[in-house]
Structures are given as C-alpha cells and as structure tokens.
C-alpha cells in the first residue's frame, strides 16, 4: 500500500491525493469483482495521462486494464457489449473535451438501454471524466460538460470533491447497476486528504453533504469549486455572514431535499459552478428551489458560473473561473448588500 499513514489513526486511514484515492478505488473494485474491467486510452503502461490508473495493468493484466484504440465511441460502445455480457466496465475519457465523439453511445445507448428493454438489460458502466479548468491547458482540456449528461434520462452524474469521497463514490458508482458519469475535478487531483480505505460509505451516492452549517446564505456547489466555496464561507464569516456550504456530490439526481432544508433556514441561495451558465445545473437548481421554497426566499437565487463563451485560453481562465471574490459578491447581493453587479438586475 502506497500512501503514508498518519499518526494516531487506524491502519486503514491514509493521507492520499485525490488521484491516488481514485487509483485505490479502482484497485479495490478490480480485486473485489472479476467482472470489473477498465478501458481507455493510455491507461495501461503509462497509467493514464494523470497517472490515475498507475500500476493497475501490471497488477491485473491487459484484459482487465485495457488500452483501447483511440476511439471514444468505440470505448463506450464496446463497453455496452461487455455490459450485455455481464461485465462492469469502467471507461476513462482522457479529457472532458474528448467525450463528444462518444456522446451518441452514452446518451442513446448507455443511458437508454435499461428503459428500452423494460429493465431486462442493465448497463453498470462507469465513465470517468477528468473535468474543469484551472490547470493552464490548451483548448478542449478544461471543459465542464456535466449538464449535457444530467439532462439525459437514465444517466447518473456525480462529481467528487475530496479524496475520501473520490474513493467511496467511485466504488459506489462501479457497484451501481445504473450507468454513472463520474466527473473528477482535475485541478484537485493533487489535493491531499485522509482516506479510510475500509470505511463503508456513510451516505448514498445520490445524497448531498452539508460541509459547514450556516444561517444566512446557502452556497451550493460541487467538484472543483468546493474548496473555493469553503474559503468563501470563511471570508464571509469575517464579514459577519453565516454561509452554509452544500457539496451536491450528485448532479443527477440532485438531492433537492437537502438544498430545500437549508434554504428554508437561510432564505438565500447562491449556486456556483465552472460550467457555462445558460441551461446549466445552476439554472435547474435555482428554478427548482424557487418553486419549492418561494415563500422562504428573502432574495432571488444567485448564480456564479463560467461565462457563455468557449472555455478561454489559459491567460483568461482566472476571469472565466468563479473565484472567491465573484462568489463573495454574489453572497453580498443575496444579503441585499448592493454592489456593482446588483444594478444589472434592474437594468430593465
């Protein structure tokens, strides 16, 4: 077992990076169930471009950890056939922007076969996607395509935000009889945290988690922006604003009950994600919370998101990505503190 043990903890608790915890989750899934196979480009000897599958081919062999031809529709489509045969494929898409050639197989085949066959055929396929920006990369390497998939009936969509969740949620995703899009926040791959490798997950894959409780504003996010949201809560506290941060974890289905419960207390909602705003997750959450909590709301829900532009070249990404200040601004607006952006609301 790689990863160093921390003092005063049980044998099974290790301090791991998020990428290493996914690696451990895959290793565990491969050894627990011989029907689990990994498929993807460069996942074998190289261990993936992020080294997430490092060492797994050497340990489990080339028919469990499969270097595929360079064809995304091929990866997903053959996974469908393997699932028909009783396998539980875990596909790696190398980068977010490369999932589109496999889109048809995901939305028309993987997502629908259970419904199309009235439940006779199961598609326990996990599709891992490193997503999001912040690593200074070139075109097609920093996208947040989760809304396309959350919009598709039959897919579960999740995103982890810390090493323990990454490990547990991945194992839950692989164990699920439904297909799961598993979005990994690539700029947090090197973030460390304690991971209990034996811990049975304390919550279901579809439940959100309240990370800090607060009474003034509910701040909803997922994946790469979770640490940023925690910083926002700390900064807001200095201003005397009590922010409750919710890590959504599951984007389809969304644990609306958790958000509703929080907004009933705070009366204010801010949603933040890296993905473009238009028809994104934030729109869905704002609309649903408005429907379900209208009489509790003290202010209109706020969204802090990427812009409705293609993900820009690296020189601009600090502007594109929601950061502490932009989110704090939205928290202020929700609190009724007018600021430069408030006026945009009332510009007729």
């Amino acid at each position, binding site marked *: 077992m790689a990863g160093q043990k921390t003092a005063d903890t049980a044998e099974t608790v290790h301090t791991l990076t998020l990428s290493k915890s996914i690696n451990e989750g895959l290793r565990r899934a491969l050894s627990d169930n011989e029907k689990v*196979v990994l498929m993807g480009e460069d996942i074998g000897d190289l261990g993936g471009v992020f080294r997430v599958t490092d060492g797994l081919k050497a340990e489990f062999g080339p*028919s469990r950890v499969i270097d*595929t*031809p360079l*064809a995304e*529709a*091929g990866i*997903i*489509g*053959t*996974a*469908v*056939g*393997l*699932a*028909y*045969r*009783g*396998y539980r*494929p875990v596909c790696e898409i190398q980068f977010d922007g490369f999932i589109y*050639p496999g889109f*048809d*197989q995901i939305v*028309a*085949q993987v997502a*629908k*076969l*259970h*419904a*199309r*066959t*009235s*439940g*006779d*055929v*199961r598609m*326990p396929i996990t599709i891992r996607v490193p997503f999001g920006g912040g690593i200074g990369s070139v075109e097609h390497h920093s996208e947040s395509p989760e809304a396309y998939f959350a919009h598709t*009936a*039959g897919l*579960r969509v999740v995103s982890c935000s810390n090493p323990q969740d990454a490990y547990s949620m991945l194992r839950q995703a692989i164990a*699920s*009889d*439904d297909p799961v899009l598993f979005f990994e926040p690539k700029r947090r791959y090197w973030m460390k945290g304690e991971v209990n490798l034996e811990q049975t997950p304390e919550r279901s894959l*579809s439940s959100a988690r309240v990370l800090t409780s607060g009474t003034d504003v509910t701040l909803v996010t997922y994946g790469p922006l979770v640490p940023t949201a925690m910083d926002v809560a700390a900064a807001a506290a200095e201003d005397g604003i009590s922010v409750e941060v919710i890590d959504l974890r599951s984007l*389809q*289905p*969304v*644990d*609306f*009950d958790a958000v509703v419960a929080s907004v009933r207390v705070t009366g204010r909602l801010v949603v933040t994600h890296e993905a473009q705003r238009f028809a994104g997750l934030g729109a869905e959450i704002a609309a649903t919370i408005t429907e379900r909590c209208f009489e509790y709301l003290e202010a209109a829900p706020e969204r802090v998101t990427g812009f409705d532009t293609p993900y820009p070249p690296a020189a601009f990404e600090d502007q594109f990505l929601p950061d502490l200040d932009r989110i704090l601004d939205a928290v202020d607006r929700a609190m009724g503190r007018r600021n430069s952006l408030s006026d945009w609301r009332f510009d007729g």
Partner: protein
Amino acid sequence: MLLTHSGEYVQLLTPRGERVDAPGFDPWVADIGSAELRSLYEDMLISRRLDTEATALQRQGEIGLWPPLLGQEAAQVGSAHALRQSDFVFGSYRENAVAYCRGVDLTTMISVWRGNANAGWNPYDISMAAPAIIIGAQSLHAVGYAMGCNFDRSDDISIAYFGDGATSQGDVNEAMVFAASFSAPVIFFCQNNHYAISEPVGVQTTKPIADRAPGFGIPSIRVDGNDVLAVFAATAIAADRARSGNGPTYIEAVTYRMGPHTTSDDPTRYRPEAELEEWRAKDPLDRVKRYLINAGALDDAQLQEIDDHADEVAKDLRAAIRALPEPDPLSFFDTVFAEPNAHLARQRSQHAAYLAAFDGGER
C-alpha cells in the same frame, strides 16, 4: 479460402434452382439435406408471410410502422441458422426474420410496432439484443460482447447485422478497429440491400463493400445474399473462425430490398421498376423451391403444409396484436433507472396525482 478480393461472390444455388459447386464452401453445407433445406425454405416463407401480414396490419391501423425485409429472407434465415442459440445477435430494426429464427415471441416483437414498448423482447430470452435504430451503433456492442466471450474463455460468439448505409458510420468502422485489435470472435454481417432509405449504395461506397474489411485486417466473404445455402456456408465459416480463436470475419450479403424501406416509404420516387424486375428474377425463395421440386424433395402436399404453417403464424400474429393489453400509463417512469431515483419518483407521483384527479383516474 476466404474471398477477400474484389467483386466476385459465392453462390451455391443459382436463381434457376441449380446447385453449383463452390469448393471450400460445399463442405459447410454437406449436412443440409432435403429436410433441412425444406425447413430453411419454410422459415423464409414464414418471414415473407410476416411481412405481408404486418404490412396489412399497418394499413389497417393496428400497428404504426413496419420495416419489411422482403427479398432479404435468405440473408437473414441462412445466417441465423448457422449460429448457436448461445451466440449473441446484435441487429437493427429489420432483423425480424433473424428474431423469428431465434424463437422470439411474436407478441413482444409486435408490441414495439404497436407503440407499446421500445425494444420488445427480453434480449436474454433469445440471445438477441434490443434492436438498434441508431444506424450502426450495434456493431460496437457486438464487438464488446465478443471481447467479453474472449475474456470468459468461452467459445460463444457474437454477430452484428447492419445495412449498406451503416458502413459509412463511424461506429461500424470503429467496431472493425476494435475487433481486429482484440481479435474479437465477432461476425460482421452486412446486408447490402442496395438502398439506405432512398440512397443507392453507390452514395456510401464506390467499391464492393466486402473490400473495406481487409484494410482493417479482417478477412471478408462476398456472398450471394439471395442464396440461403451460400449465406449459411459463409456464416458457418465465419462462426468457426471466431470460435477457434481466429477473430472477426466480415460478410457482405449481396441482396435487394424488394419492398419499401418502411411502410411510410415510397420507393417509386427513387427506384427504377426495371431494377426491381431484375431482382425479382433472383428471388431467394423461388430458387430453393425449384431446386427441391426438381430434386423430387418437395411435393404439393408438403408445400401445402408449409403454407398452412405460415397461415398459422400470421393468424397468431394478428391475434397477438389484438390481445395486447394497453400498457399501464405510468409504467414508462418505472425502468429508467435500475435503482430507485427520488427525483423521478417525485415526478411520477405528481403525474399520478394529476391523472387521479380525473374521473376514475381516466382522462
């Protein structure tokens, strides 16, 4: 022995019903005596009757749509008979004769065309996947399944059926890449019926379709798709190659869709009448019948018996359609996910409450 070169095709039974020698292929049909050939003929005739009956039912408003396979009976029946029941079939919407040969329950098959279900049969009951309407998608599924057969060290194989139009799709080409790389025990079975809705095959390719596979490292056979014996032999050869660890084979069955693409199509807009006449003369059923009659292996009584059986099947089909119960109006919510989904459950119960607000729950 496989014909991977351009142009020719394998034929064992001429349109006039004469048996011709095809060295290399003959041994694969050595077991097919008169009785077996009669039963192949019977399945082809029943497939044709299914088409006639389903088309009539569509005209009478009992079903919404039907994709006839008129003219492709030999390609489908011949290939289906060369498989084992444990082999897995991945087809499109037109492989209804294959499904029939694998023992599909006609009620479930027809429920799809009535609009009561999406995919009909349980794939595991007849080892045949849900039909694919997205052109070519199933070819990748067949390859993945075959990879699984390899991983399992089983000698089961899979077969992907697709049309000439599908050969242009990325999925079909990616499927060949994967199949060759992993030496997957899969048969690519292209029914070149000369049209993709209205587009003649020349729009998809300017070469014989079978020529494409060798470039992927997959040997191919070009076979007379209206000759049930030749199709059987080619499929048996491909199946044997796959089972014995030699990987994929590509078959182009040269045939012709004598009917419309579906009951909504009007082939007179794009298809010359003379071309149809030319292919009528190559009818896949006639040549078997002639051969058997000339060989003294099919008499009037037997013909009558086969006809009666086809009538029976058609009658059952009609009755099955009429007997189909209306589906539970809320059931379309139920199988989206395998595991409970709180969001969808909430939507379902809201809609149930809405429906229940009408008198007796009926709108």
